[in-house]
């Protein structure tokens, strides 16, 4: 019996509602039940999305489950599953030298609503629903970033994120207003025909130019593209660690989805032009991200710059033709989600008492060789060195860019990869080479069972995706 393709979306809404009710109940028992329910639910949803087949029919007028859309759903669910599994220890035991976070179930409910927004972005076919979907994927994030606004740095990070986000949504709306003005209607198809007629010279493209520029300003904020990424380091450092992971994984994937939908949807006729723009922005973003990360000593700030650089690399894929770009970006985002969560998990375990800075990693290879090994696999995957998954992911990205003929850009991007290897190796330097100060030799590391499971599964995922990437071919089907 073929499951209706809309099933995962509806189930997600139900799960969000269920979590809200648990939050409202407010007693201790429901609080403890929230996380297992959320993790179980999301896992179920992920399995469901794997079983469901995409179908061309439109539900409720504009909601459709396209093949790429389905893969993005699987990506969002996979990423959210990882974030929830990671966040549980922060709500149970706390981390990064601060106390445990409160109101777990509300956190999860908001998280799932963000997920719904992301689902919307990949499923709709008109500007209005797209705008609301995008805002639904962003505004609850302001709340999540501000989950510990009472803390000195948490508050500051939340404020910065909100103000920047508001500015970005202004530009988004402005761009949509001009797109609507051009096309006369909100439907992607109408916009596309209008853009096509402008492309072959039957009208001045001034409006289109401003619309595209404003669009990139909007998505630039969310995807941390070069001129718009100044907020990232501060917010990644200030926000609670699970939210930082959420930002770097789910929010980035949503932004990539949004950009892909727009570039291959309404702006498809101007694809050659937008690709060139993406090329320039990608080169700038990866360079600034890499350069910024060199001197970092705080782990989360380090991961911020690393995620800016990775955004630059993902943009490199978007330069390629539609199917190849989507496939490459999807595979890389899967690998990036797994690797980033693995990195944050290791930092969480290592930095529980000493705070998440480079010092907490010192002498890790002696204290717990397994964790140091996982950190090494993680760093090499981020740097894109074989045999771990990052390499194959990066290779897909570059192959998508190369298929558009930008060979020298691929060499530039690969050299940027070398630059990124420089600071990723600095992390390993702390773990393996820098001698431990005396007296702190045997800081035992507490790793609770769920974290062990998480670390194990992610390590397997990162290594296996590297060695037998046939898994990637299901993306490009």
């Amino acid at each position: 019996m073929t499951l209706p393709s809309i099933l995962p979306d509806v189930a997600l809404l139900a799960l969000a509602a269920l979590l809200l009710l648990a939050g409202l109940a407010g007693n201790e028992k429901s609080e403890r039940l929230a996380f297992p329910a959320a993790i179980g639910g999301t896992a179920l949803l992920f399995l469901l999305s794997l079983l469901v087949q995409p179908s061309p029919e439109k539900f409720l007028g504009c909601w459709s489950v396209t093949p790429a859309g389905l893969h993005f759903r699987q990506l969002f669910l996979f990423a959210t599953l990882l974030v929830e599994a990671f966040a549980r220890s922060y709500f149970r035991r706390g981390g990064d030298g601060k106390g445990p976070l409160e109101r777990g179930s509300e956190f999860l409910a908001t998280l799932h609503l963000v997920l719904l927004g992301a689902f919307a972005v990949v499923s709709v076919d008109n500007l209005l629903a797209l705008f609301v979907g995008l805002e639904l994927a962003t505004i609850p994030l302001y709340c999540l970033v501000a989950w510990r606004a009472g803390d000195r740095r948490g508050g500051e990070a939340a404020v910065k994120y909100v103000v920047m986000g508001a500015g970005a949504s202004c530009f988004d709306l402005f761009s949509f207003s001009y797109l609507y003005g051009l096309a006369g209607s909100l439907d992607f198809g109408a916009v596309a025909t209008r853009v096509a007629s402008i492309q072959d010279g039957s009208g001045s493209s001034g409006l289109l130019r401003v619309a595209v520029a404003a669009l990139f300003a909007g998505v630039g904020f969310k995807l941390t593209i070069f001129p718009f990424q100044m907020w990232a380091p501060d917010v990644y450092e200030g926000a609670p660690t699970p939210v930082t992971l959420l930002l770097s994984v789910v929010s980035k994937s949503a932004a990539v989805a949004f950009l892909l939908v727009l570039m291959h949807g309404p702006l498809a006729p101007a694809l050659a032009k937008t690709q060139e723009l993406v090329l320039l922005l990608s080169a700038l973003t990866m360079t600034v991200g890499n350069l910024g990360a060199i001197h970092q000593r705080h782990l989360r700030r380090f991961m911020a710059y690393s995620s800016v650089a990775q955004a630059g690399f993902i943009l490199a894929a978007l330069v390629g033709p539609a199917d190849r770009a989507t496939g490459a970006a999807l595979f890389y985002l899967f690998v990036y989600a797994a690797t980033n969560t693995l990195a944050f998990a290791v930092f969480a375990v290592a930095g529980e008492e000493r705070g998440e800075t480079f010092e907490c990693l010192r002498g890790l290879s002696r204290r717990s060789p397994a964790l140091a090994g996982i950190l090494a696999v993680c760093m090499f995957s981020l740097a894109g060195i074989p045999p771990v998954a990052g390499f194959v992911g990066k290779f897909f990205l570059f192959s998508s860019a190369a298929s558009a003929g930008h060979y020298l850009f691929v060499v530039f991007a690969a050299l940027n990869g070398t630059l990124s290897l420089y600071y990723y190796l600095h992390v390993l330097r702390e773990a393996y080479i820098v001698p431990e100060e005396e007296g702190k030799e045997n800081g035992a590391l507490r790793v609770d069972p769920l974290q062990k499971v998480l670390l194990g599964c992610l390590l397997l995922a990162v290594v296996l995706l590297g060695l037998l990437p046939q898994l990637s071919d299901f993306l490009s089907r």
Partner: protein
Amino acid sequence: MTGFSLSAVLVLAALLFAVGLYGLLSRRNLIGMLLCVELMLNAANVNLVAFARFESGDPASGALLSVFSIAIAGAEMAVALAILVAMHRRRRTLDADELNELQG
């Protein structure tokens, strides 16, 4: 009576957006910045309505988008102000320049 043309309204909206942008960049009081954001959103709405009125094949959806944007702006401002209040309770200030503990 179409006493004025579309481009006049568009220019007016752009002017509003520009003033809002200037305010956002130059003000130091956070709530002032939010006010300017409101202004920019309003300018975008004027744009939408103008396009709907003058030359849209499907005018109702343009107006609908502007109505939705008003609702979303409301939600956004609510969240923003909540965060400001929470931060103010802790940092005792609304000055954007004082918020520079996170840097480097």
